[in-house]
């Protein structure tokens, strides 16, 4: 032990105070000083002071309650792969009204920062109730109870006030028949809507509209297409493309009589670019050749 009888190691109180001061230095510099700077309070010009509707705020509460944050992040990093997969890089101002921030730290499931509008409401609800219906090998739990639980408008109003948001009484009473599932989906559908995606990978319509499918009648490519179909498409369009509530019947691509038949190029563009609010685009995660293979497989499903 120390030779000096008057050292700090024999003075308990002074030691404790010095330790506290040492701990506070880093705390002040990295936490409290930045709080005073404007860089830590960014705003987006197109975002209102009241970014959530009552239903969306209630959905945010559900998102917290079910622990979605344990498997889903909400930050697109400035990395090429992140931007390709999810969309535009997360902007500081997007989180301005987030109490707490919900960026997360784990991606057992995909990032959700840009999920708003990618799928239809119906798809989101059906997926929440039974994710394995769409992705049979998914490990996401089923959330059937959300569809059975009604929101309590009085509670939503109380939470909104604490959050610093004020709503008109009629907006609150409008919640009366909404379920937690409606709320959660409303919350998900607004994620990322304030930032435009400038990096989206889209197939050029003019270039593909009249293209012919190079993989037609190629058994190897059709088998590849079937493999991909059974992984990514089957959830919505069902087995053998027979279709169901969440996805069109693919065995009959003539559609309404007034419309022309789907050409190869149109099938390609639909798979590649998706349909806004109804079907996600796949070009970001598939080569053009694979898309042609899926298109070739889909053609074989026609009645």
């Amino acid at each position: 032990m120390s030779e000096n009888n008057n050292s700090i190691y024999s003075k308990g109180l002074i030691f404790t105070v010095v330790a506290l001061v040492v701990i506070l230095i880093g705390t002040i510099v990295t936490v409290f000083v930045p709080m005073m700077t404007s860089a830590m309070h960014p705003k987006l010009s197109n975002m209102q002071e009241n970014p959530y509707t009552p239903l969306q705020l209630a959905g945010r509460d559900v998102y917290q309650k079910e622990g979605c944050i344990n498997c889903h992040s909400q930050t697109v990093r400035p990395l090429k792969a992140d931007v390709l997969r999810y969309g535009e890089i997360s902007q500081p101002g997007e989180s301005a009204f987030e109490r707490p921030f919900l960026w997360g730290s784990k991606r057992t499931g995909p990032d959700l920062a840009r999920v708003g509008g990618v799928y239809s409401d119906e798809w989101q609800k059906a997926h929440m109730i039974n994710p394995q219906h769409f992705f049979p090998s998914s490990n996401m739990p089923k959330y059937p109870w959300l569809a059975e639980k009604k929101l309590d408008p009085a509670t939503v109003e109380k939470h909104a006030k604490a959050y610093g948001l004020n709503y008109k009484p009629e907006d609150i009473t409008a919640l009366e028949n909404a379920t937690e599932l409606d709320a959660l989906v409303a919350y998900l559908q607004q994620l990322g809507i304030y930032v435009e995606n400038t990096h989206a990978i889209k197939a050029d319509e003019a270039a593909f509209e009249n293209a012919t499918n190079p993989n037609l009648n190629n058994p190897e490519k059709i088998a590849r297409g079937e493999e991909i179909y059974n992984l990514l498409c089957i959830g919505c369009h069902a087995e053998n493309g027979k279709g169901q509530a969440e996805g069109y019947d693919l065995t009959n691509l003539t559609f309404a009589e007034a419309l022309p038949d789907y050409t190869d190029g149109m099938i390609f563009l639909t798979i590649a670019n998706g349909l806004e609010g109804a079907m996600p685009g796949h070009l970001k995660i598939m080569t053009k050749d694979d898309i042609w293979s899926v298109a070739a497989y889909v053609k074989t499903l026609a009645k």
Partner: protein
Amino acid sequence: MKEISGDSKIVMGYIYSALFWGVIGLVLGLLISAQMWSVSFNFGEYFSFGRLRTVHTNMLAYGLGITAEMGAFYYIIGRLTKRNLIFPGLAKFQLVFYNLVVLVGMISLFMGYTQSLEYAEGEWYFDLGVVVSWVLFAINVVGTILTRKEKHMYVSLWYILATIVAVAVLYIVNNLHIIAGLGKSYHLFAGLNSANVEWWYGHNAVGFLFTTPILAVFYYFLPKSTGMPIYSHRLSILSFWSLIFMYLWTGAHHLVYTPLPDWLQTLGIVFTILLIAPSWGSVVNGYLTLAPDWSKLRTAYLAKFFIAGITFYGLQTLQGPTQGLRAVSSLIHYTDWVPGHVHMGTMGWVVLTVTAAIYYITSKVYKTEIYSESIANIHFWLVLIGQIGFSITMWITGIRQGLMWKTANADGTLQYSFIETVVGNYPYWMARSAFGVIFIVGMLFFLYNFIMTIVKGKQNLSNQ
């Protein structure tokens, strides 16, 4: 003599509580590990992964970790101050009160009442309960140390005092919330500040709940169980002050590549690298303590627990800073690499050190030898194999998944859909569950040995 002393009863009370929460927390850990590879292990609202993962981490941090540390601190303080606890009645009350707080906290996490801040999920009433418990604890600890009968404070007391003040500051600031209702509150800080405050807290919760308290335990019990004095007092001083100074700067390494300002991220990363030095100061001090006689690893059965423990601490404090680097973070952040890292610290460093300290305390309190050294050895090896297997499978799958997320086709598009990258994890997640079983079996050997030592001790006392 028919009974152990009053202070010893208090210490044992904390240890019993810690082990109670520990068993439940570990079983829940096993359950959620199975939920990762089969959705059929989710059982309705209260037993779905989103809720249970939070219950698992909180129960082991607040139930097992903090409770065990409180017991160990009271034991160490009793010896190093050469006096009894200043307020034994208060310590008993605090034990009951804190257990109730943890119970209420865990039930409300099952119900989905959460602040969504990692390791600070408990709602406002849980926070109030923890703060009151911590203040009671601090009064007893600081009061006893200030009225000690030994002039100098040994290293362990430094770490104990630092833990007391740091946890108070961290916990209170991050848990400042706007109360919205009984089961709901919103962070006082918004957006970037919410993130910055949370990870300043989150990283230092690791620092001051799983590093400094365990170092206090390590510095006390390594010399005690081997009869070898700590190698260097100077190195202890240097490591202590630099550790508690640098830790607080590092939180932003959890927010690499997020919208947090770059300078804060970089500052966090730089201090994270600097932190290797004080961490390894304690590692080197531990190794060199045993250097004059490495045969202690064979002859003193507890020595291997402490040396393996400090080795994992050393590996942890090298791996952690590496993960903070942008290039590494871009690959492994958000993957299972990170839980692999965390579990090396908790299952390796913390569990090995704390269980060894509990063996030592129990045999001292009951003035007997441990029930079985061979069972302690089986416990050691099973826990070691379980933990290493757990971490390695997670590192492999973390790198694998990180690469699959990035892999591009020749035309610049991504090669894998998200679901393909998930499915690839399943075999590794299954292996992780298997290693988890091995770890838990090891812990059951520990529990059996612990209980039998007490039974033996009680028989000895009543025969006297």
